[in-house]
């Protein structure tokens, strides 16, 4: 039997009785078998969206279709979707076997079918040895696997996962990430996965949906979001270490920044000549688009520009070096950046002046305390309008840097 399990959200909104809007007009089409990640800072509405798909929250307006059928008013049990909770939510009074059998028992399947399905799921998740234990006697990772087992055992139309890995320690999380990924590929079941961890979002999903304040910011493949962020929020949210942001003033056809005067191409110039164009911009550069000026060959050098700055910290990662340099001048400021800082827990830890994180080649002889000449790629920089966060360098969905004609 082929179950078509595409999930369509059509202008779905959630308003709470007290008037707050948790989710606003979310449009999203998740095709059959796709692995989609909802990501965003806490309070962005990602969990509420997931709960609406699950049927645990009512949909205030809009339509939700699963497999082409409107399910707005259907109870969770009639939607045929399974959910994995952040807290695992295992039934503590039941053994692992009973936990996994629970959804099947409710379907009134006969004992033999139930047993064979549970055994099979247990084998996939390597839980066979643990089947007769109670959840209390399991480690965090094992509980997590049981929770997944309970979800896969009845072969639902779709999986919903609400931050399933966030209670695990860092090492286990990386390991479980591959388990989830492999499982999803193997089963080919439509999956919606909520997380606040952008690394999980980048590594797991076919597509990533970035949310902020109940609204979808951008939907796309991870690489696309990374290379062509539609706005300041997406640019700052995706990437670790995150993109560097600098204040840039438009003056005499150039951008005056702490890194020197940045030339701009015709396309950006035309944008900036419009009547309501901003006079101040935010310049964004990813850490890997910097390089030690000594190591850049002539041809590459022409595509970027150089500046000198004192080196504060060098973190050698082996494959490359994270170099923190200090630059003078005004900090970039925008609501989005403050929100991102708050989400990272660094709102009150910003210091003065600007600090750039650069990723230089491992061969760079850079040392802490010296002043270093650093090159950066002008074709890869982004310019944002601080008023609305729009990426000005984006044309037809592609970022083209500042020099594009």
């Amino acid at each position, binding site marked *: 039997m082929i179950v078509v399990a595409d999930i369509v959200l059509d202008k779905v909104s959630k308003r709470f009785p007290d008037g707050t809007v948790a989710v606003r007009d979310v449009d999203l089409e998740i095709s059959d078998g796709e692995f989609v990640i909802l990501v965003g800072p806490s309070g962005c509405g990602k969990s509420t969206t997931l709960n609406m798909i699950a049927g645990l929250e009512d949909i205030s307006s809009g339509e939700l279709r699963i497999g082409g059928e409107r399910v707005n008013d259907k109870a969770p049990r009639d939607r045929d979707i*399974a959910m994995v*909770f*952040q807290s695992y*939510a295992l039934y503590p009074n039941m053994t692992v076997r009973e936990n996994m059998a629970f*959804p099947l028992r409710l379907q009134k399947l006969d004992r033999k079918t139930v047993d064979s399905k549970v055994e099979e799921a247990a084998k996939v998740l390597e839980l066979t040895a643990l089947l007769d234990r109670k959840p209390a*006697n399991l480690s*965090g990772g094992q509980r997590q696997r049981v929770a997944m087992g309970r979800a896969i055992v009845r072969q639902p139309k779709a999986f919903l996962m609400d931050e399933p890995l966030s209670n695990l320690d860092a090492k286990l999380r990386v390991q479980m990430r591959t388990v989830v990924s492999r499982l999803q590929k193997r089963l080919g079941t439509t999956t919606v996965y909520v997380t606040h961890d952008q690394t999980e979002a980048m590594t797991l999903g076919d597509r990533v949906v970035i949310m902020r304040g109940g609204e979808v910011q951008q939907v796309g493949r991870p690489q696309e979001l990374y290379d062509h962020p539609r706005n300041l929020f997406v640019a700052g949210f995706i990437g670790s270490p995150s993109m560097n942001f600098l204040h840039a003033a438009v003056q005499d056809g150039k951008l005056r920044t702490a890194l020197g005067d940045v030339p701009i191409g015709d396309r950006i110039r035309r944008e900036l000549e419009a009547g309501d164009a901003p006079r101040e911009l935010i310049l964004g550069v990813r850490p890997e688009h910097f390089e030690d000026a000594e190591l850049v060959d002539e041809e590459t050098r022409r595509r970027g520009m150089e500046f000198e700055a004192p080196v504060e910290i060098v973190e050698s990662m082996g494959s490359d070096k994270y170099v923190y340099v200090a630059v003078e001048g005004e900090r970039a400021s925008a609501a989005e950046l403050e929100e991102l800082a708050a989400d990272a827990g660094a709102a009150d830890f910003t210091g003065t002046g600007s600090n750039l994180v650069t990723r230089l080649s491992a061969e760079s002889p850079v040392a802490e305390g010296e002043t270093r000449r650093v090159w950066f790629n002008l074709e890869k920089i982004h310019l944002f309008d601080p008023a609305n966060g729009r990426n000005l360098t984006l044309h037809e969905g592609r970022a083209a840097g500042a020099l594009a004609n």
Partner: protein
Amino acid sequence: MATETTTRAKLRWGLLDVIVVVFALIPVLWIASLSFKTPATLTDGKFVPREWTLHNYRTIFETDQFVRALVNSIGIALIATAIAVVLGAMAAYAIARLDFPGKRLLVGVSLLIAMFPQVSLVSPLFEIERQLGLFDTWPGLILPYITFALPLAIYTLSAFFKQIPWDLEKAAKMDGATQGQAFRRVIAPLAAPGLFTTAILVFIFCWNDFLFAITLTSTEQARTVPVALSFFTGESQFEDPTGAICAAAVVITIPIILFVLFFQRRIVSGLTSGAVKG
């Protein structure tokens, strides 16, 4: 130094515990001792009986009065407990989980009932029950017991329900359970320690009641043990039935002890451990 303080602290607490236990147990042991004494040695002031006898026990079980009262007590207390716990569980679940209009009012009213002086209700209840034909019947006692036990049940149970992670219920719903199935198969088993605790408290309340039992009964038909005890008389007007009363008192504490011991094993704390988080 540190160990010295802890040993001393342990000693001090141990001593305090002994005092409390002795204080609480001496009257009980005294009654037990009296119940085994012969009428002649009843007033000798000795803690351990000089002459042991089971005569008192034989006497009370020979009188139909006491046995009948015991049956009434057990039946009425068990039925009232069962109904109060079931109703209380449903109400407490709603209070712990849902935000329905009038929730605060419901909680307030149930608190009010718990605080209401029962003495002031006795005469109206007497009149009402006589009119309704409930006077001197089992339901005539079961009903007021449920009324006054329910607030107690609701309060204890809602505290227990609040401890159960809500995610479990959501998980049950996602697994395909109806609201009722989620409650019966997931929530209720986890609330079991709370249910048993509540059952014990309610049972003791019903078992020990004297006020309603003496006002709302008149014959052996529904008279409970605490009341029957007060009607004990000696064989003649001049004989004091102290020994028999003591024996009866010992007998009626036994069901309570059994009840507590039986359910205590089910009150396993930490039953929800392992449900959530790692």
